[in-house]
């Protein structure tokens, strides 16, 4: 792909954007993990509630879903 951005990208501003980009990238994974944890805990909690109501409890050995599956 041709990149035809012809404007002056600045120097300090570009470096700063790159630094912030790395930090925000880390935040991206943190948020994703938090989301995944929330869903996983929610599911475990819900199933636990159902089990308490007489439903069949899930197998304790069942592996949690992969992050990419969520």
């Amino acid at each position, binding site marked *: 792909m041709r*990149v035809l951005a012809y404007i002056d990208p600045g*120097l*300090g*501003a*570009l470096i700063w*954007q790159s630094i912030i*980009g790395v930090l*925000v990238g880390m935040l*991206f994974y943190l948020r994703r993990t938090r989301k995944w944890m929330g869903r996983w805990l929610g599911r475990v909690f819900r199933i636990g509630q159902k089990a308490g109501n007489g439903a069949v409890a899930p197998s304790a050995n069942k592996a949690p879903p992969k992050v990419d599956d969520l």
Partner: protein
Amino acid sequence: MPQPGPSFRDPMGRCYVTERGAVRLVGAGDVPQFECFLKTRAARDFAAKGQLVVTRRLDEGEIAALAASSGLGSALAARGGAAVYEHERIPFPSYPQEWPPEMLWEAGQLTLELGRAALAEGYGLKDATPHNVLFRGSKPVFVDVLSFERREAGDPLWKPCAQFIRSFLLPLLANRRWGIALADVFTTHRDGLEPEEVYRLCRPWERLHPRLLPLVSIPTWLTRRADPDNEAIYQPRRMANAEKARYVLESVFDRMGRALRWLQPAAQRESAWSGYMEEHSYNEGAFAAKEKFVGEALAAFKPGRVLDAGANTGHFSALAARGGAAVVAIDSDAACVGAMWRRAQGEGLNILPLVVNLARPTPATGWRNRESPSFLERAAGAFDGALMLGLLHHLLVTERIPLEEIAGLAADLTTGLAVIEFVAPQDPMFRRLTRGRGELHAALDERAFAEACAAHFEIIKTLALPGTQRTLYWLKKKVAR
């Protein structure tokens, strides 16, 4: 009206302005992505709302007709495989050096909204300058459709971020913090202000302000420390995870949006003239008579395009706009023009408010002085009605412009109607401006004014405003023989 020269900075194509509208030549290799962008939902939605200029590809027959009817014959003949597109005409182009802060802010807002919407469609905005935006009345229209290009999915950087900061955020900051007029910034700096320039203006403790750190101080410190010859800084970054890259990019738009919101101009800005409508020297009857006289002149002549010079907060511009005219309202006071813009937005009036001092109108700027024609070049022949109310004494006294010159300029600014308010030297506002130099204007009286007008206009009607030293003149431009 003389047209600006071609826009040529973008390697993807050129844009020419003609009487009918703008004509854009797009290189053959870039046509598919350009057309794809035009078909995106974002492009169609923004065009439908009037926020993105309407664009249409011309067929060979239309290109031949255009070559014959416009001065673009040689450019079209030498276009190679380039496709030709026509944009709708935006009446009376204006430039950032003529906008109040409110309009620059609105243009920045539209730029970010479009950048975000394009991102959702897999496109990126490759430049972020106020020169991409024109105003149709008080509403911004993004006109540089070629600014959108397909983005690499893993690219987390918004390269024009620095340009957005330079040309939107820092001029707004300099205006708000140090009162630096946007005209002063953009007449001499096409791309706004560098962080280093603003850094020098800041006091030491201001440089540590949480809002200024990312916009001004950190970029300045990093520029000083970085090796300017290190090409690696400018190499494209690619993330393996496209979703993460988009998340990072969205956060850039979020930060720019927050900074822009922080810099939103205050609703009530005060200046020497912003309270004029509440404090003027007319008695109630005189002001009502003035309104009636101007209203009658507008209703009788029905001008389609009106220039209101010295418009203050736009009282008479609104009168003309309500009568169906497209109004360009100018005043040298940015606070008044900002208030006028808010009024036009709020009441949905077709008024383009601009910060222009008629005694020092916007000069032509840019390459060969052809990128942005001067205000007077754009105004010539553009209006069939002109209002010059409460302006004469400012031009005569403050600017020391001779009466004949003022009448000549009024004739240049309209092709038909003019309503001019004569202000006698005995008027309290006139006397306040003279500051002891009253003798300079001893010979000024209504007869001298009428003679100066008669060189260019027929005097249709006059009205002496009761209880004042002012007379309104309803004038019709003489047809040149």
